[in-house]
C-alpha cells in the first residue's frame, strides 16, 4: 500500500515514527505550522519555527527515507494578539519560495473570536496575493460548527479565491457537507477521542463519496497516531472496499490537491537519503 500523510506535526514526533510511516508505505509527509502547546513570546520564536519546518525537518525526514513538505502560517490559538500576528504574517513571504513550502496553513479559527477572524482574513489575503494553496484548521468540539460557518463565509466573500485550492481540515459528520457543497476540499482527521475514528471516516466516505476528501493523522504532541491513515485503509479493506478505492482516498486524492503546488513532486527514488 502507498499513502500520503497530508497533515502531521513531525517536529513533535520521534524519529521512530518516520521509520514506521515509511514501513507502512508513506510516500510523503506534509507538516502544517501549528501551536507548540504554549504561546510563543515573540515573532522571533515563529521565525525559528519556520526555519525548523523549511530546513531542519525536511533533512531529518530525508534521513529516514521520507519526503517532507510544510505549510506556513500563524495558528488560530495564537491569533488573539493581532499585533503579534501582524509581525508573524510579515515574516511569511520570505519563506514562501523555500522548496518544501506548499502554501499557507494551518490557519483558521479556534474559539471563533473577532481577532481570530481578522487574522484569518489577513492570512487568506496573503495566500491569494502570493498564489498559495490554503489549509484551514476548523475549531474543536462544540466550536467546530460555528467556526466552519464563519470560515466558509470569509472564503465565499473573497471573489479572488479558487475553492479547489483550499482544503478545510478536521471535518466531521456535521460539517463535511457544508464544505463539499461549497466546492472546497475536506480533510478528515483520525484521532482516538476527538474528530473522526477510522470507522466514522469510512462511514463519511461511503455516504459522501471520495471526491475532494482526504484522510490525515494530524499526529502531534497530544493523543494521536502517526499510522492512523494506513490503519483506516485497513478499515476500508475490512469492509470490502477494493484496493483502487483505498488508493484513491489515501494516495491519489492528496496527490491531486497537493500537485496544484508545482513544488509537490514525489521522488523517483523513494530513498532520497541526505547525509
Amino acid at each position, binding site marked *: 500500500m502507498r499513502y500520503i500523510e497530508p497533515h502531521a506535526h513531525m517536529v513533535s514526533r520521534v524519529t521512530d515514527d518516520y521509520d514506521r510511516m515509511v514501513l507502512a508505505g508513506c510516500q510523503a509527509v506534509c507538516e502544517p505550522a501549528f*501551536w507548540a502547546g504554549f504561546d510563543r513570546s515573540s515573532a522571533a520564536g515563529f521565525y525559528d519555527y519556520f526555519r525548523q519546518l523549511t530546513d531542519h525537518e525536511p533533512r531529518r525526514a530525508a534521513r529516514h527515507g521520507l519526503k517532507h513538505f510544510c505549510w506556513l502560517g500563524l495558528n488560530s490559538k495564537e491569533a488573539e494578539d493581532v499585533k503579534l500576528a501582524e509581525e508573524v504574517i510579515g515574516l511569511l513571504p520570505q519563506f514562501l519560495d523555500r522548496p518544501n513550502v506548499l502554501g499557507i496553513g494551518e490557519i483558521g479559527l*479556534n474559539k471563533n473570536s473577532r481577532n481570530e477572524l481578522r487574522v484569518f482574513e489577513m492570512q487568506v489575503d496573503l495566500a491569494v496575493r502570493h498564489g498559495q494553496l490554503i489549509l484551514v484548521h476548523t475549531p474543536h*468540539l462544540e466550536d467546530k460548527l460555528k467556526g466552519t460557518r464563519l470560515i466558509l463565509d470569509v472564503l465565499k466573500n473573497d471573489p479572488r479565491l479558487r475553492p479547489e485550492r483550499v482544503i478545510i481540515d478536521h471535518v*466531521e459528520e456535521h460539517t463535511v457537507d457544508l464544505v463539499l457543497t461549497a466546492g472546497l476540499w475536506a480533510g478528515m482527521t483520525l484521532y482516538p477521542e476527538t474528530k473522526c475514528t477510522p470507522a466514522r471516516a469510512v462511514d463519511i466516505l461511503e455516504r459522501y463519496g471520495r471526491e475532494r476528501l482526504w484522510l490525515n493523522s494530524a499526529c502531534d504532541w497530544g493523543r494521536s497516531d502517526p499510522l492512523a491513515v494506513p490503519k483506516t485503509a485497513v478499515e476500508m479493506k475490512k469492509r*470490502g472496499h477494493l484496493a483502487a478505492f483505498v488508493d484513491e482516498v489515501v494516495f491519489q486524492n492528496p496527490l491531486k490537491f497537493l500537485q496544484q503546488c508545482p513544488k509537490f513532486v514525489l521522488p523517483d527514488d523513494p530513498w532520497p537519503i541526505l547525509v
Partner: protein
Amino acid sequence: MTQPQVLDLYFLAARHQLVELAAFLDRLDRTGPPADFRARAFADAVQILGGSEKNKAQAVLLALSDPTLEPLAAAATKAACGAWPGPAEP
C-alpha cells in the same frame, strides 16, 4: 455492507461502548440531578440515540454544537469542553 457484515465487524465494539456509556450515565446519576451544562447537553444528546432519526452521529454532533454565528468579542480560553454552555450572560 449487509446487516450481518456490519454486526460481525462492529457489534462487540459497539456493545462495549454502549455498556461504557450506560456506566457513565449511572456514575453521573449517583451525583444527583444534572446541574452542569455538560450533563444536561449529554442527556439531551443521548435521547437522539433511541429515536428514529437517521444520521444519528451528525445529529449528536449538532446537539452538542454552538448554533450561533456571532463571533466572540475575545477568546477567553484556548480550550473546548465538548458541549455548548449556552449564550453568555449579558
